[in-house]
């Protein structure tokens, strides 16, 4: 679902208006950025937990869980970026 959305966007972008981004395209790009911010936000918040654990504010065990979640979110973010790149290439080759 997400991939098809990115694909549509890049197809429009590369096929019809190669030089100037329209308002619609800009809005869609904002949606992609929004999606990518979700795992980034999780990483930031989990990092805050790690800081709290290091300060002794919460049990150390919670820091370990938080670090695992940071790794998972970083991977999610990476996947989103890979999807974006792949869709961009696909849209480019279709035009």
């Amino acid at each position, binding site marked *: 679902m997400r991939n098809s959305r990115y694909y549509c966007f890049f197809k429009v972008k590369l096929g019809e208006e190669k030089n100037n981004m329209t308002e619609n395209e800009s809005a869609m790009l904002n949606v992609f950025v929004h999606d990518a911010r979700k795992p980034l936000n999780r990483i930031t918040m989990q990092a805050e937990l790690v800081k709290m654990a290091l300060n002794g504010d919460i049990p150390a065990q919670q820091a370990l869980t*938080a670090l695992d979640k940071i790794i998972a*979110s970083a991977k999610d973010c990476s996947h989103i970026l890979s999807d974006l790149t792949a869709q961009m290439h696909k849209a480019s080759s279709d035009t």
Partner: protein
Amino acid sequence: MLTVLLVDDDTEFTDVACTIIEFLGHEVLTAGNLEEARSWLQKETFDHILLDFMLPDGSGAHLFNELDSLPKPPRVTLITGHPSIKGVIKDLCGPNIDYLVKPIQREEIEDVLSRKSKKTAPKVEKIERHFDLLIGESEAMKELYKLISRVSKTSANVMLLGESGVGKEVVAAAIHKASESEGAYIATNCGAFSKELIGSELFGHEKGAFTGAIGRKEGVFEQAEGGTLFLDEITEMPIDMQPNLLRVLENKVVIRVGGTKTIPVNCRVVSATNRTMEEIAQSKVLREDIYFRLAVFPITIPPLRERKEDISLLAKTFIDEFNKENGTQFNWEDAQLDTLQAYDWPGNVRELRHFCHRAAIMSDPESSQIELPKTIESPFAQKQSTTPALQAGRTIEDVEKELIYATLDKVNGNKTMAAEMLGISTKTLYNRLHAYGDISKDE
């Protein structure tokens, strides 16, 4: 400690945010969408809502109207994943709604939760000051404005009649203002001078006119040249000084004490007294010829009890003045204004002003709430309670207890008479008093 509602569909985020918010010492509940948020809002009262802008069942902005209609609307912080939405939110929500942009750090959450809601200045109701001085929209005041307006176009002398504290001096200043005369407005109190000095005060003196007259002095008539002279408490002027005043009023010239030269004077004389016309006539405190010279145009200023609708306007003005001078943000509640309106204010506007200032001084300067003293006391009137006898929210037992004690007070503690007045048996009255812990069983 705050009670916070966190509305966001990302459960991993809400889990961590809850840990942080609880660590900061607040209580937090979560909702994953608007429907859940609405459900919480029906059950709980929240101090702060952290609200995601984009939720599965709509935008967080859809909650704004519902939040505004709550008895105690919570402070709102919108959470958005996109910085550009910040601008939109600012335009949409005004300065009283904060926002957080993801990714969010702990300090940012701490900051928005610790931020006190910006004190919004109490809405300052625009209260018109007629002639820049007088406040009141009652019929009695409108009539007064009409008279001021008419007389100010002429040079007629005016006598102001009215009880103490109604604002005679302010009306005199309003007449001067409305007349747009070029000269000064000079006010003097005829009751405040000794017999020996009143001549010098009114007409001035020449150097050496009497012991201590080390220089020439202009009297108030000269000072008010081309303007308005306000003679307050005119009926307190010694009767033997009144012929001198009459001469000035008739001839429009003064001779300074110890002088021989006549000095022409041209000013409107506005005099004032708190005696009624009948009293003036009967007590003979003012010579008849003087009265007719001064009271070419008599104006009676209504007492405050005859223009009760102006009480709230005046009370608001006095509190606004106090707020300005002291940097406070006090605001009247409607019920308090009703209480003020129910009182007769025998000391008139002056008493009301002092009462408002006293209440503001007694109130917590950090709060906008004014603490009314339990009674409005005046040596000129009976004590009047500021607590309404019947108020929604009081129990029947409370009201019954108050009635019983009020009745006992009235009959000087005579229980038989009190019971009779209350329409209950003496035994029932004793039982009630016993229940209140006021008498022992043996009594």
